[in-house]
């Protein structure tokens, strides 16, 4: 028997003609911690979904290639199959029932039962629980993880670090567990807890379980993994033993793009030294994108990029400034303090926002293009209105003229200005959002994920449009994007956000390693490069 516990052989997957995985080969050996790393959208989740037989894969036509477990080709058609094959997953968000004890959670749906009078008549579902055996089993699993806690403690009120361990205990308590997947296990843990966890992972591996460790924290990977596989844009970049590589090396492989960055500077750019927006200690409570004390200054006429991995808080910044999620801190705009949690006032001060949530926040899908374009300016600046004393009526002609102008300027492809925005393509919807922001004639434009979900041709148009607005109208732009390449194409400077804070500010021409390391929270780039 070979040492290979799990092997992906030439695995490819496309969603509706869009290839997200291309010929991935990866082998996990017995007792090995195999790190899997890649930017958002590199294909990590898709690969794991294939391993777990998630419905999302099979409903979209399955995948190509093969998955072998212990050298045998295995067809995993559902998460239940995966469980039977001994594949377990430690979830990032805890799936525990707070009111149950640790043992009950660990044994949930796999309870040890004893027969009684009722169950002899009514069947197995009526059997009693063997708490003694369950507690003993749970205690054993906890002990494997070096956890000193009683198994009859209630889960509610335990620190998050403990909950993570209970999740793991549940997986290892399953008999015959062979492969355990950790998906960003340390994301919610404090440093000390994370160290504990890494030690536990090591111990599990030593007991013969194969571990797939997904993380974006390069240092953890270097310290715990035996092997690392790097994915980028659905392709397999490299698999290397950890001794032959380094955090800098991994970062470069993760970001590196063959395409040269196509930057052209207009000669008459007007970036003054005047700071137009100054953010001090901004905290935003946006679920999944917490901002924990951002400090950032933006100069007038500049395009500032905000990058970083998903969930690190980059999206929270613009949402916080606009008052869409509760925020606190100090934001100074044009020398005046900007009131937080007050969208109306922020809009009136001359800030416009193109949201990352195009369909939810960005558009009224059941309304016409023209109303969408003019709405914010109408409600906040009393434009496009005819005043009849007590009541202000909309000025249909002015709205239509303006909308037609915008449709022509931004090349919005539509049948008429009355077409509902819900029936437009993603790129054209994005242009409507930008058109609405421009109608406000803002001094500062916040754009979040402007190219998400739109095709490549439209991407370039939107980016060119932003560049044109900046160059021709001198508009200050803050662009938040998950796509580093596009930030590096048009921004003057790029702030990388990690764990809710600005990890550093880079120039678009800085090296791939610099971006990669900073995105995983490593800031002492110079020293590492020399080392």
């Amino acid at each position, binding site marked *: 028997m070979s040492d290979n516990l799990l092997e992906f052989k030439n695995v490819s997957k496309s969603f509706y003609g869009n290839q997200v995985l291309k010929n991935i080969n990866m082998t996990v050996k017995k007792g090995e911690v195999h790190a899997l790393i890649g930017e958002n959208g590199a294909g990590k989740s898709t690969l794991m979904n294939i391993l777990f037989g998630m419905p999302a894969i099979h409903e979209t036509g399955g995948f190509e290639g093969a998955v072998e477990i212990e050298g045998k080709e295995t067809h995993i058609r559902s998460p239940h199959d995966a469980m039977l094959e001994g594949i377990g997953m430690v979830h990032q968000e805890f799936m525990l029932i707070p009111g149950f004890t640790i043992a009950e959670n660990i044994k949930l749906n796999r309870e040890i039962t004893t027969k009684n009078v009722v169950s002899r008549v009514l069947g197995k579902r009526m059997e009693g629980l063997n708490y003694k055996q369950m507690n003993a089993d749970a205690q054993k699993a906890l002990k494997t993880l070096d956890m000193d806690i009683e198994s009859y403690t209630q889960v509610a009120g335990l620190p998050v670090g403990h909950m993570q361990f209970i999740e793991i205990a549940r997986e290892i308590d399953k008999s015959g567990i062979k492969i355990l997947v950790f998906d960003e296990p340390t994301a919610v843990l404090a440093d000390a807890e994370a160290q504990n966890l890494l030690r536990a992972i090591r111990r599990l591996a030593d007991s013969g379980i194969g571990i797939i460790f997904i993380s974006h924290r390069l240092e953890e990977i270097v310290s715990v993994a035996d092997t690392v596989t790097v994915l980028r844009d659905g392709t397999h970049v490299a698999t290397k033993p950890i001794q032959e590589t380094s955090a800098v090396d991994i970062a470069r492989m993760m970001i590196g793009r063959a395409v040269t960055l196509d930057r052209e500077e207009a000669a008459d750019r007007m970036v003054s030294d005047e700071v137009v927006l100054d953010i001090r200690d901004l905290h935003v409570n946006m679920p999944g994108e917490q901002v924990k004390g951002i400090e950032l200054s933006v100069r007038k006429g500049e395009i500032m990029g905000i990058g970083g991995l998903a969930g690190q808080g980059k999206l929270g910044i613009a949402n916080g400034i*606009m008052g*869409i999620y509760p925020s606190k801190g100090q934001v100074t705009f044009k020398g005046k303090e900007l009131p937080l949690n007050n*969208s*109306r*006032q*922020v*809009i*009136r001060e001359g800030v416009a*926002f193109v*949201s990352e*949530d195009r369909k*939810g*926040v*960005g*558009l*009224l*899908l*059941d*309304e016409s293009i023209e*109303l969408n374009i003019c*709405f*914010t300016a*109408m*409600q*906040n600046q*009393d434009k496009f*209105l005819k005043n009849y004393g007590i*009541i*202000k*009526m*909309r000025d*249909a002609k002015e709205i239509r003229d303006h909308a037609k102008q915008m449709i022509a300027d931004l090349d919005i492809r539509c*049948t*008429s*200005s*009355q077409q509902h925005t819900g029936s437009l393509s993603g790129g054209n919807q994005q242009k409507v959002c930008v058109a609405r922001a421009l109608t406000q004639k803002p001094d500062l434009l916040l754009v979040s994920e402007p190219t998400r979900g739109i095709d490549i041709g439209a991407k370039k148009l939107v980016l060119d449009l932003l560049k044109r607005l900046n160059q021709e109208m001198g508009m200050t732009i803050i662009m938040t994007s998950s796509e580093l390449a596009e930030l590096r194409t048009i921004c003057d400077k790029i702030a990388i956000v990690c764990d809710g804070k600005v990890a550093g500010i880079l120039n678009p021409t800085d090296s791939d390693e610099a971006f990669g390391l900073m995105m995983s929270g490593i800031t002492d780039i110079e020293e590492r490069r020399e080392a």
Partner: protein
Amino acid sequence: MEEKKLSPKEIVGKIGLPTIIIAAFLVFILALGHFMGLSVATLLSDTVKRAGMNGILVLAMLPSIQSGTGPNFALPIGVECGLFGIVCAIEFGFTGWGWFFMSILLSIILATAVGYFYGKLLNAVKGSEMTIATYAGFSITAFMCLLWLLIPFKSPNMGWFIGQGLRETIQLDVIGASMILNDFLGFSIGPNFYFPTGMILFFLLFCFLVGAFFKSKHGIAISAVGSSNSFSEASGLNINRNRILANILSTILGAIGIVVYSQSYGYAQLYNAPLTMAFAAVAAILIGGASAQRAKVSHVILGVFLFQGLLTSALPVANRVFAGTDLSEVMRMVIQNGIILYALTQVRKGGKG
């Protein structure tokens, strides 16, 4: 951007299949009535009259639907405000047109105040507005039953013959106000058809006013709040204030609606009469093609004529077909509640953000 010719499928999509089915059924009923020897002119005359009576009550659904709080199941709140205006105007001794306008004036003032608090209530229970509204309507009706009994009004036109409190039905002909709006410029065509011009004009005037309001800055804001909370919030709108404004408007329309209704009916009905008024109005606007989230003035007009037409014609016809039984009330409940049930199954759960 020239007008395109619509295919039959698109026309169905635009008007809505349920509306077309109901309309076809109405035509069928009228034809059946004709063959059963009923006077179609009488049926149509009744239809127009009842549509005019109920029109503004149905119109009251529009602002609340547009603001995202769903059809105004708490219509009885507005209705009670209107009834209070009516009895006050009688107590103060107004008659004829004076009574009519005084009733409307008083009820608008009252409905504005009550609508404000009702709006606040709805803002506190986001997500379950329709259920809360239904019970708010029931509660206010019960509360007003108490008030009608205890109110120390002295007008002999309203009191019981012995004891205290107001009568269950108050005749309006004694103050010269019965059919006062109906008969304004009213005319007859043939022996069986009467057109209540004044009332229909009054209804259309309000349709115009409400339609115009939804083209104003505030009206557009209310519609935006109703279709997407997150969009509106990001555009600097105060969601709660817009919802309150819409519900004040809805309550006022309910109040004016009952004044028009009562004068045409000839009686002001107190106590339990307002209890189920919301359901007929909700059913009417939904038949007209509105959903629980989107409605237009055209839905109100189409809906009130179809729904009231169905009720007024189906019942005599049904009574003739199933002679000897009294199916009318049963039929009315089946049709009305069936329509509401259908429409509520179409409500998208959780709304749109």
